[in-house]
């Protein structure tokens, strides 16, 4: 067993020892007596049984005494429970969310994390909630367990006397990967804790002027996609340097390789050259986009996803996927798990259950991906269960980043 580091849990252990002591005593007593009688009153040693029908006093005795004893046991157990349930005022609050099959801890600063990090000697109050089905927050080292029920707010608390790392388990059966719903409680010194909390804050405060973000900010993505598919306008993913057929206003046609100058023209004066087969729908961004942002966009379009600039967006997407628990069900290596693998998902044709029954083929474009995350039950891919919880509470920013990250792993990403 773990050395005990939580004061209320010490009471639990004490209650346990008291019950154990009583149990060992009674087991030895009853078993010993039974074996002794078996030997002593074996019919060879004791051929004639005595004529005893009972003894009312003995029976009263062994009804009343156990009753008194169990009342005592009840009381120790109950008071240790009480200690576990009495949450001290002013405890540090952390929100803990359980979902299939990962954890999310949210701190008062807004920082989120998949592991629980807390300072030593500080009472911590956990506000427990569940996204999909019932889970149970269990830290054996703290003797602490409490269910997380969808639609219900529950709480629990603990306080650790010593730094260390402890296991956190999900103790309520929640489906396929119930046993993988394991994470870590890390108890650190207050300084370390502060540093850890800051470290998170920096990441989220970092300027996120990445290419996709810029495209999003100026509404480009309302019409274009980055995943190779076509929206209202042509796809924008990986177009830098590639050839394009153009139609000029006078009807003549040309072909050119997209370069920075062309891209600038396409944004600032879109009607001047139209991509073949597309109509003149895009308006001019002249004066709408500050120069440095335009530069960012153009260089992003030129270099595609895998640039130094785009990388943070990717990393952020991956980080969010990790935090939101997507990776509990999806892989990034092409093997399907509970859900389809993210690799090669975007841009592929998906067979989904149609509302009217049967299946229908859909292209996994940005819209499709977004809908799959926000309202997964509406688009069930063939061969998979309707097991994905809805992530409709993601902020638009995070959703966008997530989808872009998915798009970056699109089908033709490696060609």
């Amino acid at each position, binding site marked *: 067993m773990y050395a005990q580091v939580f004061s209320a849990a010490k009471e639990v252990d004490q209650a346990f020892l008291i019950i154990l002591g009583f149990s060992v005593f009674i087991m030895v007593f009853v078993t010993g007596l039974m074996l002794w009688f078996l030997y002593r009153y074996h019919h060879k040693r004791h051929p004639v049984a005595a004529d005893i029908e009972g003894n009312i006093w003995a029976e009263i005795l062994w009804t009343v005494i156990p009753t008194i004893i169990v009342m005592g046991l009840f009381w120790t157990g*109950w008071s240790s429970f009480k200690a576990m349930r009495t949450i001290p005022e002013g405890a540090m609050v952390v929100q803990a969310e359980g979902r299939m099959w990962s954890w999310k801890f949210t701190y008062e600063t807004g920082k989120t994390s998949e592991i629980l990090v807390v300072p030593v000697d500080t009472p911590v109050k956990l506000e427990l909630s569940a996204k999909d089905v019932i889970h149970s927050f269990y830290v054996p080292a703290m003797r602490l367990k*409490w269910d997380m029920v969808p639609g219900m707010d529950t709480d629990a608390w603990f306080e650790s006397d010593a730094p260390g790392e402890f296991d956190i388990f999900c103790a309520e059966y929640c489906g*396929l990967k119930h046993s993988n719903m394991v994470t870590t409680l890390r108890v650190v010194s207050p300084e370390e804790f502060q540093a850890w909390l800051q470290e998170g804050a920096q990441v989220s405060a970092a300027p996120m002027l990445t290419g996709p973000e810029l495209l999003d900010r100026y509404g480009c993505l309302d019409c274009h996609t980055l995943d190779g598919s076509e929206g209202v306008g042509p796809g924008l993913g990986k177009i830098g340097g590639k050839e394009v057929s153009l139609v000029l206003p006078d009807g003549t046609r040309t072909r050119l390789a997209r370069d920075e100058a062309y891209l600038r023209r396409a944004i600032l004066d879109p009607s001047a050259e139209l991509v073949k087969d597309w109509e003149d729908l895009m308006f001019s961004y002249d004066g709408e986009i500050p120069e440095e942002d335009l530069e960012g966009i153009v260089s992003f379009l030129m270099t595609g996803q895998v640039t130094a600039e785009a990388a943070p967006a990717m990393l952020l997407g991956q980080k969010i996927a990790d935090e939101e628990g997507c990776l509990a069900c999806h892989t990034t290596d092409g093997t399907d798990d509970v859900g389809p693998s993210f690799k090669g998902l975007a841009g592929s044709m998906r067979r989904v259950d149609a509302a009217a029954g049967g299946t229908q083929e859909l292209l996994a474009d940005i819209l499709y991906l977004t809908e799959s995350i926000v309202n997964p039950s509406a688009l069930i891919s063939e061969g998979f269960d309707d097991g994905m919880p809805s992530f409709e509470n993601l902020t638009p920013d995070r959703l966008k980043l997530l989808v872009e990250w998915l798009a970056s792993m699109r089908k033709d990403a490696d060609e």
Partner: protein
Amino acid sequence: MTVAPADKGFFAPTGKGFLRSWLFTHDHKRIGMLYLWCILSFFGVGVVLGLLARLEMLTPGATIMGPQTYNAIFTLHGVTMVFLVVIPSIPAAFGNIFLPLQLGAEDVAFPRLNMFSWWLYIIGAAIALTSLFTGGGAPDTGWTFYVPFSAVTTTNVSVAVLGVFILGFSSILTGLNFIVTIHRLRAPGLTWTRLPLFAWGLYATAWIQVLATPILGITALLIVVERVMGMGIFDPAKGGDPILYQHLFWIYSHPAVYIMIVPAMGVISDIIPVFARKNIFGYKTIVGSSLAIAFAGSLVWAHHMFVSGMSDTAVMIFSFLTFVVAVPSAVKVFNWTSTLYKGAIRPEPPLIFALGFIFLFSMGGITGLVLGSAGTDMHVHDTYFVVGHFHYVIFGGTGFGMFAAMHYWFPKITGRMYNKTIATTSAIILIIGMNGLYFPMYLLGLQGMPRRYYDYLPQFTNLQVASTVGSWVTLIGLVLMFSNLARGWKHGQKVGDNPWEAATLEWTLPSPPPTNNFDQEPVVTHGPYDFKHLSPGGTDQ
């Protein structure tokens, strides 16, 4: 080897054709035998599933199967064992055969209803097993079918739950039948205080069956409605409450554990006096404690929900009541032990199984105190500690009760005797194997290993291995025991009508008993454990 028809008793052909004379029989003894065979077969299925689960737990990560399979296996293991084996086991099999005999009756009160119950049992079982091969595959919810998971999983939960619903009805009707039988069909002179304790156990059990099972029925129906129509009674998004489901489920399923154990306690109370050659110690107290368990046992259900988020006051009340309900069991254990005092003990196999029962049941029952105490339950709830607890009480209790009953009534049913040395050896192997299998689970639970875990952290490996090895020893004991009984049935030595020199009415009949039981209605003049009235030859005077 030919046996004269007269010796075959109720096994003798009735002239209606073999299948018809069994499947549509109204004879309580035949119905009991049908139950016994079915239960034993399902028991085989359950054991294999249990052993597979143990094999998987031999190493962390995948050993022989994937997580979906494992989850289905422990669910089916639990459902089979609970609903198909242990709940019907003693009442439906031995209760049917011996209750009317012990009462001196011709049959149960409603023989056709009895046959109907058996058919419901078979249909329910068939439906439950159909869920394996149809729809979305074997259910993976655990035998508790907790919502919301059971409402969202795509596996074939609806069909399995429907099977459970029908099985519940079978159980209700059996209980109802027994209550009326005991009230109406006792032989002249068989007053309530001369009723064998086995019959008393069945009586208490029957009341639990009648009162608690309907709640299971409605709960099962609600799950089906929830899945099929999206009703939303337990869905928080639609104004429902998942915790209510847990209440409804345990309102039945806690009393169900007493449906499992009280008949076994009845068997033990019948056996011990016979082999101690001495009246039971405190007959009335034992009767009272059976009724007390039946009554108080229906008030403690929420001890399965201490950490579910219900109010602290509820936790206190239910913890308190749980401790109260442990007292009648303790009283029984003390009374059994005292019955041995100053007896003339014959350590025959049924007694060895009965003593094994007392030891193992106590081991399980006493850990129930750790679970009933709210603070410690917070730590061990839903860990292997609970798994250890209920296997000790169910297998050590009901299982050993069943084994004891099989060895005790074997000569009455077959007219023959098994090899007693082998029987005793198998009992001892089983006791050892059982401790090897389940004791490590207590330690695992205390260290924090959650149950229903397909995979586990390396620190749990040693104890898991120990437990798996224990399961093999148990298997050896089981195989030895059953093969010995099977051999005894065919080749065992013939013994008289009353080889144990017992004093209850079934032993006054020939073995196997004839179809119409008693030629003339017996008149009872003494208590069930009054051996003074037996002549040395063992026949009643």
